[in-house]
């Protein structure tokens, strides 16, 4: 064997680098390609300010749940109940606020608390009784669907007071007082782009220092130019409409928090180890049961949050809310590169995966494609993405 450490560290050739990191770039370029495609076929409607705003509003709850689902899937489990839980919490909020006249400030934390309890209840069976998560959450899916029907007595309940609707439909006011374009959005866009660039440069310097393989410079520049350009573009468009939606902020903050938790903390590291090899993780002193339990508790919390946001957006709770949403969430995570067997996957991947699904939904609706074809196409995209993964892996051997 030739020790190729030096060559692997620095002058790694671009072809080889691309081959080993195909997946990450593939995902980003797939998103861009899909956006360009729909931008063209919808005659420019996709990227209109109002539609971009809509895109975020429509997909926020999927993205928020994808964060939790990624953690669950990385830990080697799955949660089929999130759609039902989301619907149930929406129904609960409606009953509390509309029927019982609870103040919003009380109902919201109560609903989040119930979400945590639901997650704990399901996690308990999975973690401590070793019942496969597929079965526990399949049961949960039925139970909570039934419970929302029962709560709402088969009716829609609404509307909500204004303060509750703000959860989803509110916008951050302009701090500069220009209003159109919205100054807050412009500043936030610049800051975000700058921050991403700065963090990228810092990571790169660190890798250089320790001889870790770094992205070829051209790639780094190109990738960051695209990401920064796209961000500035999106924020500018948002600024020319009504500014930053509240949900965009919660979504972005949550994404950053979860990316940090999974990638930089011991907690995150242990979850990956648990999903990668539970027995080895256990013998390394990792409390595997507790981690599994927590993954579900967290999922319950995020599903509840998603339920509140969804109800606020529709301004009513219906028994059908959240129906089959778990499938979109799970698909987003797998499109984002997570592995069914656990231990593999990234938050950013799941978020991009959710956007890919979201843009396709939105674009196809604008084009007037029927729901029947939409389902077929989404299914095929999921299959293609996972095929790409598997194919890639077999090539690397």
């Amino acid at each position, binding site marked *: *064997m030739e020790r190729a450490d030096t060559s692997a560290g620095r002058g790694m050739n671009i072809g080889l680098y691309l081959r080993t990191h195909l997946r990450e770039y593939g995902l980003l370029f797939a998103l861009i390609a899909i956006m360009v495609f729909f931008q063209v076929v919808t005659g420019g409607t996709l990227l209109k300010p109002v539609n971009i705003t809509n895109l975020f509003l429509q997909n926020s709850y999927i993205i928020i749940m994808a964060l939790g689902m990624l953690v669950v899937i990385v830990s080697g489990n799955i949660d089929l109940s999130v759609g039902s839980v989301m619907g149930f919490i929406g129904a609960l909020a409606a009953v509390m606020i509309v029927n019982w006249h609870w103040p919003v400030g009380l109902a919201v934390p109560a609903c989040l608390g119930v979400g945590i309890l639901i997650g704990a209840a399901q996690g308990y069976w999975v973690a401590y009784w070793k019942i496969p998560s597929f079965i526990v959450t399949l049961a949960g899916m039925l139970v909570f669907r039934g419970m929302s029907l029962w709560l709402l007595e088969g009716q829609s309940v609404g509307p909500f007071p204004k303060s509750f609707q703000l959860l989803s439909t509110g916008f951050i006011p302009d701090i500069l007082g220009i209003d159109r374009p919205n100054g807050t959005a412009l500043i936030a866009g610049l800051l975000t782009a700058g921050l991403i660039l700065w963090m990228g440069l810092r990571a790169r310097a*660190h890798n250089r220092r320790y*001889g870790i393989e770094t992205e070829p410079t051209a790639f780094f520049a190109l990738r960051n130019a695209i990401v920064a350009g796209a961000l500035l573009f999106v924020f500018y468009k948002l600024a020319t409409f009504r500014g930053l939606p509240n949900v965009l902020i919660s979504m972005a903050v949550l994404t950053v928090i979860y990316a940090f938790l999974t990638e930089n*903390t*011991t907690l995150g590291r242990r979850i*990956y180890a648990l999903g990668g090899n539970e027995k*080895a993780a*256990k013998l*390394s002193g990792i409390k595997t049961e507790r981690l599994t339990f927590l993954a579900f508790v967290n999922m319950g919390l995020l599903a509840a949050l998603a339920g509140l946001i969804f109800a606020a957006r529709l301004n009513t709770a219906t028994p059908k809310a959240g129906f089959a949403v778990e499938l979109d969430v799970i698909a987003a995570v797998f499109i984002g590169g997570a592995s069914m067997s656990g231990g593999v996957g990234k938050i950013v991947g799941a978020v991009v995966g959710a956007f890919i699904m979201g843009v396709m939904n939105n674009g196809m609706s604008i084009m007037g494609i029927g729901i029947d074809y939409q389902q077929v196409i989404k299914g095929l995209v999921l299959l293609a993405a996972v095929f790409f993964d598997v194919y890639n892996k077999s090539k690397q051997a």
Partner: protein
Amino acid sequence: MTTLLEMRSITKTFPGVKALDTVNLTVREGEIHALVGENGAGKSTLMKVLSGVYPAGSYEGEIHYDGALAEFHDISNSEARGIIIIHQELALVPLLSIAENLFLGNERARGGVIDWRETNRRTGELLAKVGLREAPSTLVDKLGVGKQQLVEIAKALSKEVRLLILDEPTAALSEADSQALLDLMLELKKQGVTQIIISHKLNEVRRVADTVTVLRDGTTVSTMDARTEDVTEGRIVRDMVGRDMAHRYPARDRRAGDVLMEVQDWNVWHPEHAGRQVIENVNLTVRAGEVVGIAGLMGAGRTELAMSLFGKSYGRNISGRVLMHGRPVDTGTVSRAIGAGLAYVTEDRKSLGLVLEETVQRNVTLANLPAVSKSGVINEAVETQVAEKYRDAMNIRTPSVFQKVMNLSGGNQQKVVLSKWLFAEPEVLILDEPTRGIDVGAKFEIYGIINDLSAQGKGVIMISSEMPELLGMCDRIYVMNEGALVGELTAGEASQERIMSLIVTE
């Protein structure tokens, strides 16, 4: 004798690693050919090239087999030509019976319906051939590794084998099982089956091999013919590591201090069969700076003892006390056991020791993440330094610490597991078959590390099926049989014969 196989200038590269560099290998019809070399030298890779695991086109060079150029695109191609490989990691389906495993993918069937009569009859014949006395309907799950190995060979025999490749077949076997396997190899040779064996146990190589080829760093260093020249272990070792090795065990001054760890009245019951006691009334002590061996046959309960001590990871209704520095400690969960100063290096690195999908770095730090983090946030720079330190100290061969452990050779994976537990800085380190699948040079390094630990005043418990290793390293040896300690010998008293007689007289 005619040449059966010739591999010419084989070169195989993985991203960042040149695993084989113009390797040549010539195997004659009817011989047993041993392939030896350090961990990561490329032995397993060469055999995977030969058997089509790495298909034609994914490597450079030519394979000439049975007089013609051969291009295998997958395993079924090579199997059709009589080349059967038994991999380093056994590949049987645990919950199927012996008979089902033997004919998996090759079922005795008529019109898609399995002919059980014929299946069982053939299984019986094959089992007799390999000398395994088990019913064809026995689940593979219930067999020890030694017997599973025999099932693998029987499976090979069911397929009209001409060239049988065994990748470290005895690594996980007891002395007696190993001997039986080697006898079987010689028997197969008489029947005309050509064989290639990869092994780190040079005494076995000497016993069976007609020809020995040594690989080093992905190239062929030498080929020796045992029929015309005297192939000594010393010569093989020199070619393997590139220098003379006078001693197999590094010197150490034996200086046992105070009692560090004490186990009192340890009893363990089987996790599934409630009535079966697996460990009976074990009492043992480890002093500071002492290396204590536990000898015994396969199935004597050594691993079960170690795992039950380490966070009750095995068994139930466990009773007894563990004392560290004379004070009782709680070892009820793995993290508490680690906290009490214990570490356990498993014998089963793939399923219990490593997260294969993760990098070398992440595996090394897994058992001691707090040491590379501050308030729960990992400092990757520090973590990389730690991993690099162990990569150097243990001489782990990998293009970088960011390589997935999955892509390391077997022996180097073992070093990663060891590194993980050294980094956890235990007071007493329990090593379960620590040198399984490790080359002579690396064994010497690991013995050196054990000696360093003992010089620092740590205690080491060493479980090993290689008696010479126990005799060479330990200050004291407990002999275990059927779940109980049946004797205790000091380094001066211990010998292979005395250990065996203690086991037998029980």
